[in-house]
């Protein structure tokens, strides 16, 4: 029984990720016929980086939707997508990245492939992790707002030049069955393919490099990690600062010091390995919460 519970605890995140990706991309006909779902459900954003050009996608990508509204002639700010990001961030924070993002799932699966020597951090990690904020400000906000065509419309710069999710979830399945799209391939496709392959190769070496260094959605949700309903707290009376949480963390976060680091994707591994069960989800802690808790 104990073994069964341990097995469930160990694999539950993977099953939630698979189930959520399958349900939110459940328009199977799209994959078979090389076209995308055109229902009204696409007014609603999905929480993760889920390209709306994925043939199966039943909802919209929040980053794509954000740029679509910003780039429209009549709007220079989007209340709807900003509100959505604030709502999801305030409730879940980066829990979304760890449990509900299909591109995160892909990276998790690739990271399981044995590789020469896994590294917890890439060289320059301290600075590289701020790159996602640059991507957010520049490619998701500033460029779509300021670089306009003759009709006064902006482009989705992040989707166009960076997003690897669009390539994996949108381009590859569509191009596999849609011959007319294949005829239109050019330099942009080559650029995005090279970037995708680079990210996937890096994923074999280090854990979730895209989430850590480039994802604008992770950058936004990370800002909410400290206050979100789904946040961690460490019981200072129980914690012995043994460091097992940090050792088990693929992002190398010192959970006993900063349980709500903006990099934490709430995978829960630190909680599972803590020998004294000092780490808990704040919203579940209830009466157990004592003084001396660390919740930074």
């Amino acid at each position, binding site marked *: 029984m104990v073994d069964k519970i341990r097995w469930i605890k160990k694999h539950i995140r993977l099953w939630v990720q698979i189930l959520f990706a399958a349900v939110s991309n459940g328009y199977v006909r799209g994959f078979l016929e090389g076209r995308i779902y055109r229902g009204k459900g696409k007014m609603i954003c999905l929480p993760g980086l889920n390209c*709306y050009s994925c043939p199966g996608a039943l909802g*919209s990508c929040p980053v794509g939707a954000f740029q*679509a509204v910003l780039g*429209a002639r009549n709007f220079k700010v989007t*209340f709807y*997508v*900003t509100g959505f990001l*604030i709502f999801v961030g305030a*409730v879940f924070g980066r829990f979304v990245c760890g449990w509900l993002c299909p591109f995160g799932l892909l990276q998790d699966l690739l990271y399981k492939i044995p590789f020469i020597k896994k590294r917890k951090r890439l060289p320059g990690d301290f600075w590289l992790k701020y790159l996602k904020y640059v991507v957010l400000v520049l490619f998701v906000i500033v460029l779509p707002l300021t670089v306009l065509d003759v009709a006064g419309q902006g482009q989705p710069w992040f989707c*166009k030049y960076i997003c690897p999710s669009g390539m994996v979830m949108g381009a590859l399945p569509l191009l596999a069955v849609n011959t007319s799209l294949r005829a239109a391939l050019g330099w942009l496709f080559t650029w995005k393919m090279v970037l995708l392959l680079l990210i996937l190769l890096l994923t074999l070496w280090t854990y979730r490099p895209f989430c850590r260094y480039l994802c604008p959605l992770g950058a936004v949700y990370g800002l909410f990690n400290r206050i979100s309903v789904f946040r961690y707290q460490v019981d200072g009376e129980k914690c012995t600062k043994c460091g097992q949480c940090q050792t088990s963390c693929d992002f190398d976060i010192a959970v006993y010091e900063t349980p709500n680091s903006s990099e934490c994707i709430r995978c829960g591994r630190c909680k599972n390995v803590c020998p004294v069960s000092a780490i808990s989800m704040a919203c579940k802690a209830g009466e157990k919460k004592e003084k001396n808790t660390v919740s930074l």
Partner: protein
Amino acid sequence: MRFLKENRAALLLAAAGVVLMVLGTGRGETEIILRKAINICMECIGLG
């Protein structure tokens, strides 16, 4: 009650998020998102 107290900031922000979503829907942003999302996004798939 304790839950509300401990998550005051998050719940206030979540409520603000809902208000913004309602405002955005009211001024037709969801129509723009729908229009973009029901057509293949050429930029997303690297075709331009």
